[in-house]
């Protein structure tokens, strides 16, 4: 037969374990929330916003030029990594195409060769035509494109996320949905 004080101690030990489990569960919520904060923020407010690449006049008709912008979501420690390049193609003076710098294969920076009208990737040899469509190499699709609009003589794009094959482009986002700059 167990003496009454021993069974009382055991009971207290069990209660202690339950107490710790409960506190642990309560603490898990903020810890997991903290770890998932990049995902939660991405789902709630999104990372993208409209920003200016500068005056339309900087991008001559029929040419493709490199432009850079400061990422809209930026931290003090980001340094130069928040300066993102992109390729701007002025198709006919009215229509534009703004391509992400990242190859649609694995994200390396593509370079524009105006003479042959091709984008070439230095990593695994992906090549694209001037309209961003796939020409050859391992990419399975064309270059990623940013949504754009011209406002008061400025070329605006909706950007803020590194495009990847799995999370392709801002283009999948409905452009009219949100537009803080409009």
């Amino acid at each position: 037969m167990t003496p009454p004080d021993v069974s009382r101690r055991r009971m207290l030990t069990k209660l202690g374990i339950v107490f710790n489990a409960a506190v642990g569960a309560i603490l898990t919520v903020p810890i997991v929330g903290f770890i998932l904060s990049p995902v939660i923020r991405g789902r709630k407010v999104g990372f993208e916003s409209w920003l200016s690449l500068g005056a339309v006049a900087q991008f001559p008709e029929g040419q493709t030029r490199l432009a850079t912008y400061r990422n809209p979501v930026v931290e003090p420690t980001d340094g130069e990594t928040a300066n993102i390049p992109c390729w701007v193609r002025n198709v006919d003076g009215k229509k534009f195409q703004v391509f992400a710098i990242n190859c649609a294969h694995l994200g390396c920076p593509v370079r524009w060769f105006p003479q042959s009208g091709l984008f070439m990737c230095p990593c695994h040899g992906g090549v694209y035509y001037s309209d961003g469509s796939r020409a050859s190499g391992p990419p399975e699709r064309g270059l990623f494109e940013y949504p754009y609009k011209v406002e008061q003589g400025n070329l605006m794009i909706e950007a803020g996320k590194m495009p990847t094959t799995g999370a392709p482009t801002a283009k999948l986002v409905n452009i009219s949905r949100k537009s803080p700059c409009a």
Partner: protein
Amino acid sequence: MRLIKKVGEWLELRVQLAGTIEETMAHPVPRRTASWAYVFGSAALTTFILQLVTGILLALLYVPSAGEAWNSLQVLNHQVSLGWFIRALHGWGSNFMVAIVLIHMIQVFLFGAYKFPRELTWVAGVVLLLLTLGMAFTGQVLRFDQDAYWGLGIGASISSRIPVLGPWIVNLLLGGPIIAGATLSRFFALHVFVIPGLLMAFVGLHLLMVLKLGINEWPMPGRLVRRSTYIQEYHELTHKDGIPFVPDAVSKDLFFSAFILLAIAVCALYFGPFGPSGQPDPTIIQTVPKPDYFFLWLYAVLSLLPPSMETPALLIGPVIALGVLIALPFISGEGEKSWRRRPIAVLTILLVAVAMSTFTRLAGEAPWSPVMDAWSGEPIPAQYLKGRTALERQGALVFQVKQCHNCHALGGAGGLRGPELDRVAVELTQDQLIRQVIQGGGNMPAYGKNLSPAETTALVAFLETLHPAGQQPARDSSRAESNAHP
């Protein structure tokens, strides 16, 4: 002397560890394991300790901030006395550690050491391999230069292909929507706290199991492992014919570890530290990112796989490889240990080794990448221009200006993405050349929109001159007359 003894006695009374330490050091091991084949595990531990020490030293000055990391490496390289040497030791130490861990694994596999009762020692070893590769990748990221920046982009692009969860995993990996400050901070946390902590825990577990179960005996052909008798047999081997690990069996471990440390120091001294290459400024796009050597094979595989196979291979391949490694001791936990009677095991190692080194070597040349500056940097060999007509020379100019040279070699220089063109006239007729240039195909872009008819005519005229001296260019026999070459 008496003082030391007194201090020792004072300590022993309080910590009472002498017995355990003596027992551990002097534990008996089979006589033949005092061999040069058994030195790689201890050498891996030695390199790990070197990495811990040099890593802590680097952390004294390294700044894990996207805006400052690159500058702090420059300070280490150029301003702090011997900072470059500590960086070089850490960099070369990582290369040696990956190599030694792999060699250790091959030795253990060939000696059947993963069989009963050491299955979990092997599984812990597989975890240690993954953690070591994790250290290698995260360490490459901390050298926050252009290669690190675009390497992260590749990592993110691969992760994004995971079904359903891909985009979220990218955000988790990068700590935000782009590669930036938060990305470097979390890789710093992984490289400095999380993975080393896990490494230490698993090294402890791995060593504990080696001590408890004993080091694997030298495999003898025909001496089979049976669950029912093995432990008894091993006990006899160690207690009747064994030798104490310290001081008898440890000498080769000592020599090899010292030799490895010396080799790392010599490499560090002679070759110096790794990078950093250019600043991690994404707007500098004149860059050709390449991974460190232990991931070169992956770089080659990613370039050579057909596009449709890529995502399945990237996502399923590692799962299968890991599954096979973990399942191995449970599938073949008994039986023959000696490599002399395990031809498939030997062939597997050879196959993997040949494949990996071929891919690594290929990645050194990267024939699949266009040579981005060949069109402006590599001239057309003079003999291809001598005595040519104006039209043909005009074609040579088109060849350069339209960046054909980036993918096609001439006279041994230029890109290797497409075929070399030194004898293209023998292989394709005029019509075929025109078609290929205009429509592309076979992994070549179509140039129809980017060449005027005059440029096409000139380019094809030049290409038709590219044939060995004694060999006539290919001709369309139905047009024998009109196509005759001068």
